[in-house]
């Protein structure tokens, strides 16, 4: 089965996150709770499920996290906008794989995504959004690792 290989320029997204990492993570006061960071969830994803989980998590951020987070600081707003619009572009890029039926969703991939949504729903929505934003580096590192050979050095 062919894998979905897409060309991603992660550098700017990682740079945008680094600019907000300390400020956003400092607002996350629930250190004993994680949403993405549990090793089991993302690290157990099989290569053939990478496209589906990427698509689902991009939608998680675009449709929920960025909308639920209300930001007043223009500096942070700019960087979140940069990430949100980059995720929108990545969703379009993944669309090509979906059209070539390379983005199938196994039960494990669907479960993994549902677990993340469940964790999100267990927190008050603003706290959940802040925590998910603060864990973007986990998602970006996972994308980097699983879409390698495509992300720009």
């Amino acid at each position: 089965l062919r894998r979905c290989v897409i060309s991603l320029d992660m550098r700017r997204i990682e740079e945008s996150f680094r600019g907000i990492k300390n400020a956003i993570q400092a607002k996350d006061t629930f250190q004993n709770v994680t949403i993405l960071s549990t090793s089991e969830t993302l690290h157990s994803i099989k290569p053939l499920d990478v496209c589906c989980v990427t698509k689902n998590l991009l939608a998680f951020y675009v449709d929920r996290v960025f909308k639920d987070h209300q930001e007043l600081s223009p500096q942070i707003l700019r960087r979140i906008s940069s990430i949100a619009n980059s995720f929108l572009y990545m969703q379009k890029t993944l669309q090509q794989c979906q059209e070539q039926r390379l983005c199938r969703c196994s039960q494990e991939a669907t479960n993994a995504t549902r677990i993340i949504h469940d964790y999100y729903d267990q927190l008050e929505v603003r706290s959940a959004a802040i925590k998910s934003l603060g864990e973007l580096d986990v998602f970006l590192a996972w994308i980097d690792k699983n879409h390698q050979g495509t992300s720009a050095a």
Partner: protein
Amino acid sequence: VPCVSGGLPKPTNITFLSINMKNILQWNPPQGLQGVEVTYSVQYFIYGQKKWLNKSECRNISRTYCDLSAETSDYEHQYYAKVKAIWGTNCSKWAETGRFYPFLETQIGPPEVALTTDEKSISIVLTAPKKWKKNPEESSISLEQIYSNLKYNVSIYNTKSNRTWSQCVTNRTLVFSWLEPDTLYCVLVESFVPGPPRLAQPSEKRCVSTLKDQTSTLKVK
């Protein structure tokens, strides 16, 4: 005996210095306490777990660093650490790090560099940097196993022509051929992982001279 919290100013600039996953917590003494014999205690926290844990080897220490490599060796987790200053029955509030993510934040140390030469070429054999390990007996984990896209930037400087050029490689053996005989060349190698930029540590500069050209010496005879 519990100390009075907040009686001292907090330590400052508390950060992790991480190279090849050797993760050292370091800080500056509290301001305004020069000459006072302050000691420190350290705790750490695994993000997502339940409680802060004591680092017993860093309880009431007078140095301003603490090796938390063992406690933070699962590089796919994220961590916090905190320090407080103690003097007699007074102690500061905790000073806490930001969230530390070894997988993304560790500096990649340089590879080991072995050079051999003949008249017109230099062979370079690189040995990938290794992850920190607790005991020397443990088997080593190469950082290439952790970062499968680890690359090396090899720079070579011709001391005679005063020219430098570089080459980005992924394999660990390379040969620069058709060099000038009897010429001193210096080599510098830096490991890097594509992705979020990290502080990098170049290798020590290694210089080696190509051998004299045997054919020209024969002609002279």
